[in-house]
């Protein structure tokens, strides 16, 4: 590609008279991308998340040992070295391999929580915003009540009743994390509810159900994605906390929080057992936070300050 074609392509993207909807959309995406990629920390965040995805996808290739079966006889609690990069745990399992496989469980948790909690919040928020009146009051009161709860403690209580396990942990976290999404969706809905565009759709006789589903929900998606990305770190930390307390993933799953819990017993002498999984959690959470910040600054220039 010559410099000239790149130049003309850029002009096409940045044209202030886009010829098609696609061109306008691509142009906007391009501007957002330029703003995003100018933020070095955001790029670092994106790289971390890409690395997480890659590691999770190719865990079988990347991990030299089994994540669940260890060499009890010869490889118990070995310090980091050439054979075991991050050392081994009390069951002789390679910690590096467990962390690599743990990436899958981290993704499993954040994705499941997101696809449970975000739609609930979206539904509650758009319905409340579009319907208004009593529906709005009641739904938002419920949302506020959930917002006023301590999330981790509530998740603990839920898991206590549901029984420990990673699925129940996901459920408990999802139940406690939808309210902010509902608030965001409602706020977005309120800004478009009285727009001419929605009025026009109403005049054409679309049902409220269809309007909310086809015309309002799509408008809430981008701010919701930013918020979900920013929440990912919190979700990971909560899941790890539950795992640490023995309420999330159960052994022998290589979940990072549970790995820290099992390393706790040897923390004073074999610190590496707990150190590596904690560092993994820190890095991935940091990645999501950086990415979320960058997305927010790029897509929502109003809040570009912090």
């Amino acid at each position, binding site marked *: 590609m010559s410099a000239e074609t790149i130049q003309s392509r850029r002009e096409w993207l940045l044209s202030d008279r886009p010829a098609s909807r696609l061109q306008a959309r691509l142009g906007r995406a391009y501007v957002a991308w330029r703003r995003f990629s100018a933020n070095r920390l955001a790029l670092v965040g994106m790289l971390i998340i890409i690395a997480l995805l890659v590691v999770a996808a190719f865990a079988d290739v990347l991990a030299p040992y089994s994540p669940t079966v260890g060499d009890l006889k010869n490889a118990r609690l070995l310090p980091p070295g050439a054979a075991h990069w991050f050392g081994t745990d009390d069951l002789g399992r390679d910690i590096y391999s467990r962390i690599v496989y743990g990436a899958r469980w981290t993704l499993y948790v954040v994705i499941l929580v997101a696809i449970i909690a975000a739609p609930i919040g979206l539904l509650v928020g758009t319905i409340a915003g579009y319907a208004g009146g009593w529906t709005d009051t009641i739904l938002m*009161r*419920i949302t*506020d*009540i*959930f917002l*006023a*709860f*301590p*999330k*981790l*403690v*509530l998740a*603990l*209580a*839920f898991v*206590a*009743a*549901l029984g420990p396990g990673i699925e129940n942990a996901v459920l408990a976290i999802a139940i406690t994390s939808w309210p902010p999404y509902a608030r965001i969706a409602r706020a977005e809905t309120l800004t478009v509810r009285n727009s001419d565009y929605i009025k026009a759709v109403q005049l054409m006789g679309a049902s409220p159900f269809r309007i909310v589903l086809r015309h309002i929900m799509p408008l809430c998606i981008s701010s919701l994605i930013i918020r979900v990305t920013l929440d990912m*770190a919190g979700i990971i*930390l909560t899941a*790890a*906390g539950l795992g*640490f*307390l*023995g*309420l999330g993933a159960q052994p022998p799953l290589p979940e990072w*929080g549970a790995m*820290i819990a099992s*390393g*706790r017993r040897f*923390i*004073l002498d074999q*610190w590496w057992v*707990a*150190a590596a*999984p*904690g560092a993994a*959690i*820190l890095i991935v*959470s*940091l990645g*999501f*936070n*950086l990415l979320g*910040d960058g997305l927010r600054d790029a897509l929502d220039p109003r809040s570009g*300050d*912090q």
Partner: protein
Amino acid sequence: MSVAENQAAAGRGSARAVAILSSLGRFLVIAVTTYLGLLAVTFFIGRVIPIDPVLAVLGDRAPTAVVERTRREMGLDLPWIEQFYLYVKAALRGDFGTSVLTTNPVMSDIRRVFPATIELATLGTIIGAVIGVPLGVLAAVKRGSLIDQVARIVGLIGYSVPIFWLGLLGLVLFYAKLQWIAFPARLDVVFEYTFTPITGFYLLDAAIQGQWDVFYDAWRHIVLPAALLGYLSLAYISRMTRSFMLNELAQEYIVAARAKGLSESRIIWGHALRNAAVPMVTVIALSYANLLEGSVLTETVFSWPGIGLYITNSLQNADMNAVLGGTIAIGSVFIAINLFSDLLYRLLDPRTKAG
């Protein structure tokens, strides 16, 4: 002042009082519904989710007679709504049942352990605010500078680090290697028997009684967990302070203050921060509430005998009454702090009129 002016001032005062009272009324309504919501959720967790709530409360080793009696006491044969009514009534009396683990009423257990948590969270918030506010102010004033970058990274790591892990590493470093701090507990065993707490806040109690050896020992135990919680709240407080300050520093009244010839420090601390202080109060209160919650994991790591450790111990022993009682306790304080901070906001901001 003349009589008329006095009256005018009094009139303003009472208008303000009315405004505060009316918002107080609204807050009471919110407080009550939120508290009922909390009870509804714990009721749901304790009575609806488990297949046999009695078993969930007593464990599976209780004798049949006890099981039957408890079943009747809990009103499990009644319709849901009546059960809930009884549940709320009991909760309002402070009756959360008996803990299987300690065999005490849950409420008396909570009373015993709560001061430890409050002490920890309070110290953590103080650390967080004392460092976080100036850090946020400096980051905003010197926007884009090295200190701004550092504050940002420090904050981001605070948002991203698993606190229980940081606590474990802290123990390795400061307790095992450097021996700067004492082992995980609230006091050395020596003092456990000689020291009689008054308020339950050991630092305070030791200071009141002039037992400085106890004070020092208590300090050596609390300093690391409090510093960790302080770091969490610092991350949040400094970030919010920065954003509030940036917002204030862009206002016209800052230009006016410069035009008056005020010094930069007077402008920053006397005008911008005073304006930012109004929302800051909410942030600090919220971070305090978050620390109460954060204490669950921290207390577990540091064997800190507070509500968090109480809940996790009960969890491990399937002591459902204790878990839910603890949840309600933390939830209530959480709700109270939320409401209180809102109220304080209104009191501090001269612009908030009635409604």
